[in-house]
Structures are given as structure tokens and as C-alpha cells.
């Protein structure tokens, strides 16, 4: 493997046309193939815009916006083209093409757009339908799926592309535990051969999945480093949903005054480790 980062952002900033402040400023990180980056921060902090910029969507749809700094997808060899980027939108309903009448056809549609040969398309449909347990929905109209089912289809469509770079905007929303497990397994499967960037509020997932985490607040990069350092660093993390085990620890420790300190600490540590494993 090459030591060059496949994706490199240096002091990267973007302001939408007519906006009075930048969507994000001075973002810097690097990512290798096989690495996963988590992006955290409250809504409107610029996370989605940053994903759009990485995917080239901003450049295409808002060419009048002001961009500064560097974004190097060219750093990858061979160069990562927009067709090799998968994007799972935050709003799963936005992902549907509206052009197909079955779940299978919807998966095929995203590949046909890329010119994938029909025999490969058939393989990918089988692969994704089984990976996301969509067998019972394969012939259903995409517009009749439930919220969670639509999310699973959106994931299947993007993963079917076998992207070299996969961007996911809050992908666990609307999923139940089994769905989240299917997603994590799928991500672990493609992780080896791709770069993943995940925007996610559930910090447990960031901990479990990501090699690096970037914390954006009002468009400013507050932190970039290993996930385990995010809460031990002295930056202000109060705008983040703290991981539920820390939350539980705080709430319960406040409540259970009678519990001896050592006993509770031991229980909490056990919880912490078992929670990180699941």
C-alpha cells in the first residue's frame, strides 16, 4: 500500500453563494484507502456540506460558491473519479430515483447510470439483496417501503457501486438493531478496499468503526484525531450527544448515592467494555 493519502484536505473552506458565513472553514485531514473517518458535530455545523464538497456536489451545483484551500482526490492512484464515490444521503427518501418500479430495478438503476455491464449488475443485485435482507421486498415498488426499509434500499444502492470512497450521512437513522448490525457488517466488508467517511451522532458507532474522528462546530474544525481522544481532550464537547454509556454513568452515579464507589466503577467498566463490543 502506498503511503500517500488517497484523500487530502488542506485548510479547506467553502462559502455558499450569497451566504454570510462559510459552511465550513479550515478543514484539514487525510485518509488512506482502508481507513474510516467519522465526522461529528451538531446539525448545521457544516458536516453535510463537507461531504458534498468531497463528493464534488458543491462544485457542480454551486460553482459560484467560494472555495479555498486544497482538496486532493488526485492524490489517489489511480485518481478517484466522482463515479467511484458512493453517497448515502441523510434523508433516505431523497435517495430514491423515482424512475423505477421495483426494489431490484432501483439497485440496477444506480449501476446502469455508471455503465456497469448487465451481468455484473445482476451479481450486485443478488449480493446487496442478500447483504441487507431485502429478499421479501425485491419486487416491491420503492415508494411503498417503510422508513427503515427505504434506508436499507438506499444503502444497498450505494454499496452496489463498490465505491472506492463511500460517504454516509447519518446512516443508522430509522434502523432497528438488526438493521444497524447489517450496516456495520457491510461497512466492515467494504472497509478493506475503500475509504469511508461517516457522519454520525451515535458516538458508540464512531468508536467502533472509525480510525479517525473530526469534530465540526459552526463550520470550524474543533478536533481531529483518534476517537478515544475526543472526550479526553480538553475541547468543549457539550454540543455532542455523549456516548450513552458515559451518559448512563453520569445519570446513574448521580442517582445511586448508596452504591459504593468501587463497586459502581467496576460495573460501569464492565458496561463500557461490553458496550464497545456490541
Amino acid at each position, binding site marked *: 500500500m502506498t503511503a500517500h493519502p488517497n484523500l487530502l484536505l488542506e485548510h479547506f473552506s467553502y462559502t455558499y453563494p450569497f451566504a454570510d458565513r462559510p459552511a465550513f472553514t479550515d478543514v484539514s485531514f487525510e485518509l488512506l484507502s482502508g481507513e474510516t473517518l467519522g465526522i461529528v458535530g451538531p446539525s448545521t455545523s457544516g458536516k453535510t456540506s463537507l461531504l458534498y464538497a468531497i463528493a464534488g456536489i458543491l462544485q457542480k451545483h454551486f460553482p459560484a460558491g467560494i472555495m479555498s484551500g486544497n482538496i486532493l482526490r488526485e492524490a489517489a492512484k489511480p485518481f478517484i473519479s466522482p463515479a467511484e464515490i458512493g453517497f448515502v444521503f441523510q434523508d433516505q427518501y431523497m435517495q430514491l430515483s423515482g424512475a423505477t418500479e421495483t426494489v431490484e430495478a432501483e439497485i440496477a438503476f444506480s449501476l446502469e447510470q455508471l455503465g456497469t455491464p448487465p451481468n455484473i449488475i445482476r451479481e450486485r443485485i443478488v449480493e446487496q439483496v442478500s447483504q441487507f435482507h431485502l429478499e421479501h421486498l425485491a419486487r416491491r415498488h420503492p415508494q411503498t417501503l417503510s422508513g427503515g426499509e427505504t434506508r436499507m434500499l438506499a444503502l444497498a444502492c450505494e454499496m452496489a457501486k463498490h465505491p472506492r470512497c463511500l460517504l454516509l450521512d447519518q446512516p443508522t437513522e*430509522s434502523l432497528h438493531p438488526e438493521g444497524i448490525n447489517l450496516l456495520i457488517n457491510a461497512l466492515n466488508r467494504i472497509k478493506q478496499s475503500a475509504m469511508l467517511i461517516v457522519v454520525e*451522532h451515535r458516538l458508540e458507532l464512531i468508536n467502533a468503526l472509525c480510525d479517525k474522528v473530526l469534530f465540526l462546530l459552526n463550520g470550524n474544525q474543533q478536533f481531529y484525531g483518534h476517537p478515544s481522544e475526543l472526550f479526553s481532550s480538553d475541547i468543549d464537547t457539550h454540543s455532542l450527544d455523549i456516548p450513552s454509556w458515559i451518559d*448512563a454513568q453520569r445519570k446513574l452515579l448521580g442517582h445511586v448515592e448508596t452504591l459504593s464507589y468501587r463497586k459502581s466503577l467496576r460495573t460501569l467498566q464492565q458496561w463500557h467494555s461490553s458496550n464497545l463490543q456490541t
Partner: protein
Amino acid sequence: MAFVEFTNVGFSYSHNSPVLHSISFSIERTEHVMLAGTIGAGKSTALKLAVGLFAPDKGSIRVDGISPSIPSLYEIVKRIGVALQNPSDQIFCSTVREEMLYGLRNLGANETSDTFQRTVALFGFSRLLDKHPYDLHPAQRRLLTIASAIAMNTPFYIFDEPTSGISKPERESIVGALHQLRIAGKGYMLITHDLAFGMEHCDRILVFNKGILAVDESLPDFLQRENAQGILKKNGLQMPIVPRMSAQLAQNTITAQYPDFISQLRQQQTSSKQAP
């Protein structure tokens, strides 16, 4: 008489196998209920039936004594405020102000009405009123659907996945709003995959499993069951960490009962909300 009443309700979408099988439950006007279940379990379908967007194939539904249907929709929307799972199914005005006023205007109210003003303040929307809803962040768009429902000042609310796609600040707005509803003596049902959120803000749990009502119990009773975790698991769900931990700690102490803990937490929140 219960406010929302399902009696042996069966339903299927055209040509498909049944989505709901003989569901019966009744909810009082002032209750706070969560509805959980795996994806595709029929939760949103139940919501659509409750407001009359579809009619049941079997059984009957009553909302405040009225049978919900397209002709009675006007009567139903005066009684149940709804936020749908997909905000785009609901938002159709071109400004935040018009969106929030849409239902109110039907009731003969306008921008000067008390509930409009209060709801705008509650959600911090005053600076967003002239924006187009599609220029809002998706998380704010979801808040807008909830705010629009609350502005209607109905006695009961159903919110479908209110915490989906939002982060901490919006979550705090929703929590604030739910507290206000509680204080005002209004009832609600939260359809949610976020069990921790549901358990913190509701007193009763319903679980759907493939269109069957698998659990219907008061939350304190449910959480005190020895096999509560197992019951959720059997229905494809996972007990959130706080009550799970609480149960484990409770084996060592008698004080760590989750329901007590939640009621204390609520009192704290309520008193701190009312303070200044």
C-alpha cells in the same frame, strides 16, 4: 371513553399480505405512550389509520368517538397533531411561517394567536420564519413538522420518529416541547426506534412485531419485569443502556430502580424549566 381506540384492527395494502393483524389498544387523552418495533412492523401504518388516511380492512378505530376517514379528516386534525416520518410528505408551504400557520388558519386563527407565538418561541424559530422550508437543515425541517403540529394546540399528538436525523440542540427543543405538553395535560404517542428517548418521555410502551401487538404495558411495570430485556430482544429490539444498567445495579442496591430515577429526572427538568 378512551381517546384513541383500535379494536381488532386488520389492514393490508393492496395485493399484499396483512400489515396489521387484529390490533387492539386504547389510549386515554392524557397518556404518554411509545410505540416501538422493528422496521416494517406496521407502526407508521397504524398512525395513518388513526388519522384516517387509510381505512382498516377489519375491526374499527375511534378517535374521541369519531371514526377517522377522509371525510372526517377535518375533525381528526382538530384532535390529533401529527408529525410524519418523512417531513417532505407533510411540508408544502413556501415559508416556515405559512407552514406553521397552515392548520391554524383552518381553525380561524392567525399569526397573532397565542399558540403560534408560543410555539415559535419554544422552537426558537423567530429568525427562520421567512425562510423556505427546503432551505432549512433536514433536522430543522423535522422540528418544523413537530412545531406545526404543536401550534395546532390539539389535545393529543402522534410523532413518527421525532428524533431521527437530529442532533443534540434539536433534541433539547423536542424534550422541552414534550415537557410543555405534559404540563399542559396533553397526551402523545411517540413512534420511535430510539427506545432510550421513548422510555424517558413516556409512561406506557406498545411494541409491534410484524403487525401483531406484542407488548402493551405501563413502562414502570414493564421495566420491572425480570425478562424485560428478553422480551424486547424477542421482538427484535434492544434495551437501552440506562435501564439495562439500572437493572444490573439494582441487583446490588434497592434504590437503583429506573422508574424512580426517571420520575426524579422529570421533576428536576420540570422544576428547572419552570424556574425563571
